[in-house]
């Protein structure tokens, strides 16, 4: 027992040590949202660009501009979209490029205002495809109440990009005294999920057509700013907007990665209950076949909120009245010990650690 506790201290030390980039080449694992990506971001990018805003490693930077007693708080973010295939059930790369950036702004509690859009187009891309993408961006932007106010286009030789890559940046304004941060989770808080897990990632995996599976799963790509706005409103009504402690959209790396980031930043233990986590039947089935865990699969229209306990029930009620929060529910709670760890009580009655993935989620062979 003494030996094993020493061991686990050793493991915890290893887990917490500073991210160092050891690789000498970029591999796909560096883009997968797991530990390899954290090593790249913290071990390399941060070393060169370090500043107090970037250091927080939130999905957006929040800063104040203007003088006087009432400066304006702004949220600023950027994201690139390289999904393949570019059209998939429930969406396309254009819709994703608007929603992803709108959501990253919204997760700061901000109202999204303006977007930029940069396009890298591969020689030979059918104009008809580009039109389809632009139409979809147009309607997604209209729904989200944002306007694309600046842009850029580059065309590269065939084979040096894959059809179309899009970068969008966005800016929004924070109009309430919101204080959300991955470092802000507190023991006693409840963990809220806005809907079913894994729809987007599973859709893409199947749409690639390598698996010859036919399902009716669709990407959940959706703008979440109205849901966040409802949540802030409800929080203000019940107690205060400050009762919402963390807001994140669990995209790459899924809910497991998001919760791990929160547990580590806030130095808390997060416990979720498998039985409470909503997963669509088809997604569950596809994941069983593919050997994947929905907890690690990407979402594009879901959010995780960590909130003060007294706010949890009314907040979930309110979220369910929003079309993008219909299946909102409480999936767990924040505790003190052991800090930095996420665990799940399985439907079977055991408990297991839900760690960040090392790299890509690779299917098991048997």
């Amino acid at each position: 027992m003494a030996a094993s506790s020493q061991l686990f201290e050793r493991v915890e030390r290893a887990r917490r040590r500073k991210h160092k980039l050891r690789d000498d080449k970029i591999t796909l694992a560096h883009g997968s949202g797991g530990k390899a990506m954290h090593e790249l971001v913290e071990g390399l990018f941060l070393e060169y660009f370090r500043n107090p805003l970037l250091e927080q490693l939130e999905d957006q930077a929040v800063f104040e501009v203007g003088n006087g007693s009432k400066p304006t708080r702004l949220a600023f973010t950027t994201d690139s979209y390289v999904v393949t295939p570019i059209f998939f059930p429930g969406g396309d790369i254009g819709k994703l490029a608007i929603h992803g950036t709108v959501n990253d702004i919204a997760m700061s509690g901000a109202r999204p205002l303006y977007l930029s859009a940069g396009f890298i187009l591969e020689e030979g891309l059918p104009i008809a495809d580009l039109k389809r993408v632009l139409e979809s961006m147009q309607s997604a932007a209209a729904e989200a109440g944002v306007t694309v106010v600046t842009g850029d286009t580059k065309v590269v030789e065939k084979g040096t990009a894959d059809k179309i890559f899009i970068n969008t940046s966005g800016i929004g304004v924070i109009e309430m005294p919101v204080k959300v941060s991955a470092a802000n989770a507190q023991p006693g808080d409840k963990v809220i999920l806005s809907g079913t897990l894994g729809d987007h990632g599973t859709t893409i995996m199947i749409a690639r057509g390598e698996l010859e599976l036919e399902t009716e799963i669709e990407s959940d790509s959706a703008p979440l700013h109205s849901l966040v706005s409802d949540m802030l409103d409800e929080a203000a009504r019940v107690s205060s907007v400050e009762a919402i402690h963390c807001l994140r959209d669990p995209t790459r790396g899924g809910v497991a990665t998001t919760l791990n980031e929160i547990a580590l930043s806030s130095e808390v233990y997060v416990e979720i209950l498998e039985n409470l986590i909503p997963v669509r039947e088809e997604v569950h089935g596809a994941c069983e076949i593919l050997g994947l865990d929905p907890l690690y699969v990407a979402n594009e229209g879901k959010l995780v909120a960590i909130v003060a306990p007294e706010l949890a029930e009314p907040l979930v009620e309110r979220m369910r009245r929003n079309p993008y929060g219909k299946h909102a529910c409480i999936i767990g709670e924040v505790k003190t010990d052991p800090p930095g760890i996420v665990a799940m009580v399985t439907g079977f009655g055991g408990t297991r650690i839900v760690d960040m993935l090392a790299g890509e989620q690779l299917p098991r062979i048997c």
Partner: protein
Amino acid sequence: MKYIDEYRQGDIAARLAEQIAALTDRPLKLMEVCGGHTHSIFKYGIEDLLPPNIEMIHGPGCPVCVIPLGRVDDSMSIAQTPGVIFTTFGDAMRVPGSKTSLLGAKAAGADVRMVYSPLDALKLAKKNPDKNVVFFALGFETTAPSTAMTVLQAAKDRVPNFTVFCNHIMIVPALKALLDSPDLKLDGFIGPGHVSTVIGTRPYEFVPNEYKKPVVVAGFEPLDVLQSVYMLVKQIVEGRAEIENQYARVVPRDGNRRALEAIFEVFEPRDYFEWRGLGSIAHSGMKLSSKYAAFDAELKFSVPGLRIADPKACQCGEILKGVKKPWECKVFGTACTPETPIGSCMVSSEGACAAYYNFGRLSKVAQRSASPS
């Protein structure tokens, strides 16, 4: 999900756990041979439900874990040959060779692609007639039939640019080697489920007959595993040593005749095959038979074929035999982590070390906070 959820019911598990605890308080060591079981045990937290006197030992049935360094290097050497598309199951991408992994080779320019089935590799070969498509065949009798069927298909369709780098292994010689190991102290075995759908339960009969150890062939859902533990403990308590089949809904006693025929048609046993950590085991590996030599990547490409010793600090061998627990290895969790694996047991989620690292820490952490020592 129908036919799955039935095997994951927590209330039944709790009752079963009580029944297991009521059987005996004798300390027992049970080995689950198959990596799939190890994965289930950790994924569902099954150890939390077992009484403290029952200890699960995680055996060598993780194909990715037992592939030796030299063979991984050979795979990389083939993958780096100009004009080769090297296809592999996702699991094998991160397995470290002596210098890098397939993921690293891919980043350095090799055309390595993940497939879900060897048939996908064959399709790729037909689509790219100017390339040599190689399939990295890994696994026990579970995956061997699909490789065999693919080779038969390739022969039928006369696909000249498709070959197989064959690393298929057999469970029974490995079990025998384990049972003959002098430092092994086990009370019974949870037998592999998927392997047995192919080979049946007959090949394990030597375990109770010659070694007097009980075997229960088990399914992979958590209730399957728990029920198998119950059956195994019951045998031990009643002084029986028999083969029992918990997974009868899938495993017939004589296995799958067609799958076995395909294996016998396409493969022949190697005189010796090296297992990581366990050393060389006679007749434990398969290679393509001379009739299908045209599809043998080892004959088509020059592979270094070197035997490379495991890193000194790595104790995968002792861990695979169940002699040591993952945490008794000096590099576990420090130098050897899922991000930077030294030993293969840390790579696959079926590997005992990775399973322990990823899923197992909590109960230990809880114990630690409960008893400040």
